[in-house]
């Protein structure tokens, strides 16, 4: 072979082997198949009612037909644009249609135009809409529920994705509530219920009463009230002590019974509040947290690893709604939260010891 050709071939081959691994890059650069900016969602803002709003707009087209069903007392069937079958029921006697012939599974989207009491043990594979009050049977499984009035779930029922009640939402003992549960008025869960994300003006976990506290909204984050006490080790606030600063403890933090903190509190390790403690600001633990009975917390309550709340404790108030959040939350029977409870992994209402 001519040496000049050999050199040219060598250069060509080298060039090819150099370019070869860059081919996918060159193709992507040319075709821009993945050049869109990352999607920053502008609308939802983490709104807990996002899915219920979506379902409501989807069901809006059926409301006129549902109204006719109520007036005529006859059911109607059809197919939604997404291919799901639907069933519109306008009379109480029609509820047997959700489980014809003793079937335990309902595969249609169901819209009730009136108050309804559902039978026990039915699994609803699709969403349910209720224009009136909806009372679920025991041991039922719901994919998603939207109630224009109250929703009451029977014992040991399950919500798989979300539920929203314009009125109050109540779940009897031992329900499993996955995903988002919201109400425009009140949520009440009995003991044994498991949950993830709850939102309502008042959330009663177990038997508890709503009451207003006298803390104004501005005290949650108002620097003019106090300075900051930063402690590099464990800290104990004595029983009955009144602290007028924000507290940051880089070790454990223990707050004695009846103490009051006018500011916010943070600990890097375990935080423990004894009975009757009152914190006007927020409560933040980078570890675990135990809140004793009958405490009053005004601001957000955050624990990065897990939280236990004893009976009689109130977080927030009607005037100062708040968020309680931790990967796992164990709440004793009789706790009130005004706003959001968010257990990323699992929350549980346990019977009073």
């Amino acid at each position, binding site marked *: 072979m001519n040496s000049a050709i050999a050199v040219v071939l060598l250069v060509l081959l080298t060039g090819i082997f150099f370019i070869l*691994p*860059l081919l*996918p*890059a060159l*193709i*992507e*650069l040319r075709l*821009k*198949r*993945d*050049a*869109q*900016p*990352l999607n*920053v*969602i*502008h*609308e*939802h*803002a*983490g709104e*807990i009612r996002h899915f219920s709003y979506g379902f409501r707009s989807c069901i809006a087209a059926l409301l006129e037909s549902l109204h006719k069903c109520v007036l005529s007392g006859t059911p109607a069937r059809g197919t939604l644009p997404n291919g799901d079958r639907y069933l519109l029921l306008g009379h109480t006697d029609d509820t047997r249609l959700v489980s014809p012939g003793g079937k335990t599974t309902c595969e249609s989207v169901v819209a009730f135009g009136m108050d309804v009491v559902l039978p026990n043990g039915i699994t609803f594979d699709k969403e349910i809409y209720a224009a009136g009050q909806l009372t679920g049977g025991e041991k039922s499984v719901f994919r998603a529920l939207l109630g224009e009035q109250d929703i009451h779930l029977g014992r040991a029922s399950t919500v798989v994705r979300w539920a929203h009640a314009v009125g109050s939402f109540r779940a009897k003992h031992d329900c499993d509530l996955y995903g988002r549960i919201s109400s425009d008025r009140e949520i009440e869960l009995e003991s044994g219920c498991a949950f993830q994300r709850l*939102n309502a003006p008042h959330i009663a976990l177990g038997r508890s009463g709503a009451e207003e506290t006298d803390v104004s*909204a*501005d005290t*949650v*984050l*108002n*620097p003019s009230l106090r300075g*900051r006490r*930063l402690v*590099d080790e464990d800290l104990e606030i004595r029983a009955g002590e009144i602290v007028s600063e*924000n*507290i*940051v403890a880089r070790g454990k933090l223990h707050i004695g019974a009846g103490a009051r903190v006018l*500011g*916010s*509190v*943070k600990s890097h390790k375990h935080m423990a509040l004894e009975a009757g403690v009152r914190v006007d*600001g*927020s409560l*933040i633990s*980078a570890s675990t947290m135990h809140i004793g009975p009958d405490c009053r917390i*005004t*601001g*957000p309550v*955050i624990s*990065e690893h897990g939280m236990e709340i004893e009976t009689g404790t109130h977080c*927030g108030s009607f*005037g*100062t*709604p*708040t*968020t309680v*959040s931790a990967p796992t939350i164990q709440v004793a029977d009789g706790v009130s939260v005004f*706003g*959001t409870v*968010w257990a*990323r992994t699992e929350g549980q209402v346990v019977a009073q010891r």
Partner: protein
Amino acid sequence: MLYSLFFIVALICVYTARHYVFTLNRLFGFQRHPYIDIDVASWPRVTVFVAAHNEEKVIWNILAALMEVNYPKDKMLVVPINDRSTDRTAEIINLFSEENPGRIRPFHRAAGKAGKAAALKDAMESADTEVILIFDADYIPSSGLIKQLVAPFFDPEVGGLMGRVIPLNGGTNLLTRLLDFERSGGYQVDQQARMNLGLVPQHGGTVAGVRLSALREIGGWDDNSLSEDTDLTYRLLLAGWKTVYQNRSECYEEVPETWEARIKQLMRWAKGHNQALAAYSFRLLFGKHRATLRERIDGFLLLGVYGMALLMLIGWILALGLFYEGVAPLHGVIALLAITAYGAIGNFAAFFEIAAAARLDYTRQRIYLLPFLVLGFAVSIFSVSRACVSQMLAPITGAKFHWDKTQRFRTSR
């Protein structure tokens, strides 16, 4: 020469290990997002400052976006800072203010020191809210962003806050696509890993917040600083305040579309960062203050990132020099192992980090562009080295630092 080379190689190894620790933490470690769940609260009053120097192309967009956020209207005041603009920025701000009475309080600055820190310092004299948020004018906040950025301040230890920056024009050309990658690695992996590990997330000066009482405690903005965000991060740290990072608080920005603009931006960042290195590194490592040991070490390494570019360049020169001098620092199997390890692990640490970020962002085809990062890396190393050298020579040459505003490319109202 040989010991200098060993020293540089040791430093490179430390930074390589740091890249791997961060990346593996993001892929497999416990992820901290402690404040992101706060969706209901008694929201405090907040002031949002928008720094604007000749921003006629973009200022309307951010003000319009801020009017649409879901924060209680009576608790949020927007203060656009018109910093000595010579274009239509002032006119646009005034027009917008008239259209949204009571929600905007323009701050017009006609004279004074140049630079964002100086503008913020002047504008914040009248601030009376505990929570202050800061945006550059080219950013476009989403509806829920303000609540997300305010939420961490319920933690009494938090003095500063940083959200995530996402390029809006990332698909424009090769440079913007590379910058998109770099931002992704820097925020999705680097910043979040530092947050996870309790290290020092860096305040970025935009999509960011600061607690007014903490800012006043540390003496306010330093208007001599070229990089007010880095400066703030370290002064907060030394005073026992935490800067936290929220990866899910995302905001669009515009990245430079020309290499010239990019090089200017890099050089300004490098100079500002090195300024902080000179001012705080010794105190941070050995001083008596509230930072923990891990914060001291990570903080020091973070301060040194721009200095490493110059050191690496010197390392290459030393290695070549030693080679031609006939010095072989390593022999036999050790040399083979070292070269193999460097090729297989060390050289790719930053690429691994960026690839991990792309995976965490659920992007697909853009990962193919990874080899082109070498180009961005080369430009960075020479620009940053040039900035370092000019900074070191400044006392001799008498050159003054000056603020190079990043050029905007958007065409808008």
